[in-house]
């Protein structure tokens, strides 16, 4: 049986969702940055014209990826990873400062953000390492190596002062979970995060009382063996210690602007001028969209430019204002479709590399999607990471596209793997 051409074998659903998202992005940027003096979407002096170029470049690079041998990305995973680490080191030396963090490399007219590339490199390296047949994630050494692959880029990105981009890598824990890491760490993480937020809002003595009450309830319910009692007591002490250390971490480890962002979300600080200004304007824009929105190019908040950075990190405002709840629902559904489709495809892969890589990128998209939209509607602190495929910006669009196309290629090639 003669095999079809590569174009015939790619997953058409994933590709269509990708194209839909990129198109919505372009239209939203056009609306956000619309300039009556330059009404043409292909006006390259405007951001929407530039985004159109970025889309063209992304599709071209995507096409080239489809022509490359599928094994290439598995074989050269560490090379990509090494290259991205090198770029992260390079940016510390020659990086240029854009809005507070030194995370850009300037190459003539092109500026590029190595932290975007590092997500791709890390997804590849993690998939390659865990995809080896003899890897067993229940082993301590394996776990350590897997954590190492994730945290080296995190440390380097933190060194640039870009905590937002660094936080994205947390999501690789979900990939590790899928590949067999104990589920406890996720639960511990969740409890710790809850305790962190609660202890910023409520006096720690109340929390202690509540913890002791929970401890007592557990004691009543479980088998009071010596081992269980010891374990529970240990957990109680650890939880109390954690609550006390939160204060210290919050006041001494976080930076002022990070504290402010968290305080605003918790409602402890009202700041309608600085950080809070973005958020308030963003929420007014989205909220004023109502059920069906104000109509394309009719968003007044959008036009007033009252949401700074609207074409980049706050692009969701345009969707919320101009297409309302219906549009938001559709967009969120589209993202969920994208992620579930990737997981569905990942599970049908024969090669563990392809599967793990698929989970890796699905999780990256998920984190960006959840944090970015959550930020624009006041659910999470303002963290400057882009909304995949929608936000204006060449580096991020190209990287997200490459992630998709490499996966499309792996999937198209799955039958050739024995």
């Amino acid at each position, binding site marked *: 049986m003669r095999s079809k051409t590569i174009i015939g074998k790619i997953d058409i659903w994933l590709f269509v969702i990708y194209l839909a998202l990129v198109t919505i992005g372009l239209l939203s940027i056009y609306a956000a940055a619309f300039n*009556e*003096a330059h009404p043409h979407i292909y006006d390259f002096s405007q951001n929407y014209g530039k985004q159109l170029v970025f889309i063209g470049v992304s599709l071209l690079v995507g096409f080239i990826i489809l022509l490359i041998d599928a094994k290439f990305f598995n074989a050269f995973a560490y090379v990509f990873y090494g290259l991205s680490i090198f770029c992260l080191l390079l940016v510390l030396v020659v990086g240029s400062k854009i809005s507070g963090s030194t995370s850009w490399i300037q190459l003539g007219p092109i500026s590029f953000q190595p932290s975007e590339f590092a997500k791709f490199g890390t997804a590849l390296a993690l998939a390659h390492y865990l995809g080896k047949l003899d890897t067993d994630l229940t082993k301590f050494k394996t776990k350590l190596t897997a954590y190492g692959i994730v945290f080296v880029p995190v440390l380097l990105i933190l060194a640039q002062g870009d905590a937002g981009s660094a936080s994205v890598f947390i999501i690789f824990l979900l990939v590790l979970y899928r590949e*067999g890491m104990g589920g406890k760490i996720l639960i511990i993480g969740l409890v710790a995060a809850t305790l962190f937020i609660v202890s910023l809002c409520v006096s720690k003595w109340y929390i202690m009382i509540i913890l002791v009450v929970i401890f007592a309830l557990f004691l009543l319910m479980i088998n009071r063996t010596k081992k269980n009692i010891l374990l529970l007591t240990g957990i109680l002490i650890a939880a109390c210690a954690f609550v006390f250390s939160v204060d210290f971490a919050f006041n001494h480890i976080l930076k002022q602007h990070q504290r402010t962002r968290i305080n605003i979300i918790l409602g402890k600080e009202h700041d309608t001028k600085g950080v809070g*200004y973005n958020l*308030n*304007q963003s929420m007014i824009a989205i909220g004023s969209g109502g059920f069906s929105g104000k109509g394309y190019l009719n968003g007044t908040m959008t036009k007033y430019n*009252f949401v700074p950075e609207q074409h980049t990190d706050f692009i969701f405002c345009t969707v919320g204002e101009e297409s309302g709840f219906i549009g*938001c629902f559709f967009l969120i559904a589209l993202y969920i479709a994208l992620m579930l489709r990737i997981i569905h495809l990942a599970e049908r892969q024969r090669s563990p590399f392809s599967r793990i890589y698929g989970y890796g990128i699905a999780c990256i998209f*998920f984190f960006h999607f*959840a944090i970015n939209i959550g930020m624009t509607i006041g659910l999470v602190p303002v963290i400057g990471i882009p909304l995949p495929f929608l936000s204006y910006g060449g580096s991020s669009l190209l990287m997200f596209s490459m992630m998709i196309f490499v996966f499309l290629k792996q999937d198209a090639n799955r039958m050739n793997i024995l």
Partner: protein
Amino acid sequence: MIKNKINYSQRKYVIESVFILVAIILLIKLFVIQIVDDSYKHSSDTNTLRYITQYPSRGKIYDRNGKLLVYNDAVYDLMIIPSQAKDIDTASFCKLFNINNTTYNNNLKKAKKYSNITPSIFISQITKEEYGRIAEMLYHYPGFYFQTRTIRQYPMPIAAHTLGSIGEVTKPEMEKDSYYQLGDYIGKSGIEKYYEKQLRGTKGLKITVVDVHNREKERFMNGAFDTLPEPGTDIILGLDADLQAYGEHLMAGKTGSIVAIEPTTGQILAMVSSPTYDPNELVGRKRGTRYNELLKDPNKPLINRAISGTYPPGSTFKMINGLVSLQSGVINANTPYPCNGPTSAPIKCTHYHGSPVRLYDAIENSCNPYFWQAFQDMMNSKRFENQKAAFKFWYDLVTSFGLGRAVKTDIPFTVSGNIPKIEFYDKVYRGVWNALTIRSLSIGQGEILVTPLQLANVAAAIGNEGYYYDPHYIRSFGNTDDSVSFEKHVINIEKRHFKDVKIGMQSVFEGEHGTAKWSKIPDITIGGKTGTAENPHGQDHSIFMAFAPVDNPQIAIAVVVENAGFGSMWAAPIASLMIEKYIRGYVTRPNVEKRILTTNENPK
């Protein structure tokens, strides 16, 4: 060779559930703010939000004694939102605002070009009186509203160059700083420009709900998203308003400048550039036309001659040459040099006095041959490896007085003047030159050029016996008591040499032959020096520099009167009147003052 790895594929459901759960949380929150909570919703056709910029009051400017120099007055800008301005009765509108149809159409076109939905200024700076008449009629014209603005007012019509002015932002200025919107005001020159960030304050924002009848109905969400404007910081200048006014009065009808500095701080006490203009002329709607008139005026009143006019310092430069020769050790204050009067060579003397002369007499009589010989002996001295090394010594000390470089403080657009470098002479004379070649330097002519500001600073440095602060306008910001200080420069010349030079400068007023003896002030000691700058284009410039009192200088001053001939005729009496006015508070020599104010032999 598949090992018995556990299959974890069931965990896919956990991960999918997390994704879906988060999406649901996002949707719930969206549902709340987009559908449940009404406060965000203002998309109905009848109600629109209006964002009104709350302009902060710009910081006021005071003089050193707390006299108000600049304050704000309210005017009103008529704003337009083109997309809302529908069904306007143009004829009645034009009648109400007293404009013609063409203006209306042009302004509308301009506003539309900027943005159809963002407000822009339609008619700027409507006075309080007009506003009262018009305001109640405005409801006929949807899409138009008033915005309060402040304009600058100057209680005393002085110091136009120093204070500068504000004007509408230009496109490049808006691109440089996103704080500014079309129609905003920005400091264009002088203090207004340099301290723009402090003076402007921070704009606030008021969001109101407006109905179809163009009436503001309520604050949006009870003002939860409004921000209050923060007023700008007041600025207190080192300027003495009375002295400044007096200086402008004395210079009226003449071309030139006066710079007075407080030697102990470097603060500018007065800076006069004549001809000048009333700062109130560059305010409000008439600014544009008046500015163009001033720009075209052949006497160039917009130019601040005190900082951008360069002149050969003439004899006022002799003190520096004297100091350099003293510091080199080649001469001391008592070293005598012969003077043959008008027959001296290579430079003749223009004054009649005895011979030989010492430093003190040489300054008193402004004796050219003395300074030429002192300069020549220094250049040829065996103390230096060669003449170039000697010249380097001279150059370094001369420039340490602040000459040959622009002042980098809050005084904008200062020019550097010129002190020639070795390389310059090497180039011009192809490497072969000596003291004789460059002899005109010894009497402050030749390639040397200084600004009146630099000259006043030299007077301050000599008065201080060897140090000065970079000259500057500001004394302090209104919100603190701390004065703003600038870099202190110490000149590498011994104090005793300054003392010798000061004795000579005092005898310029008090000596028998002193070139400024007619400008002596009773009970106030002055050290000064006349100068006459050769002017190839016409009559020479009259120059004078001075400080007083000699022992503890409170004021250092430089005066330049263009095309007025000898320093002793014009610049010296003006300087002495300024000094008396500042130190005593009033002038005891009405005849001198009268001559300066009324004599018409001034300067073409």
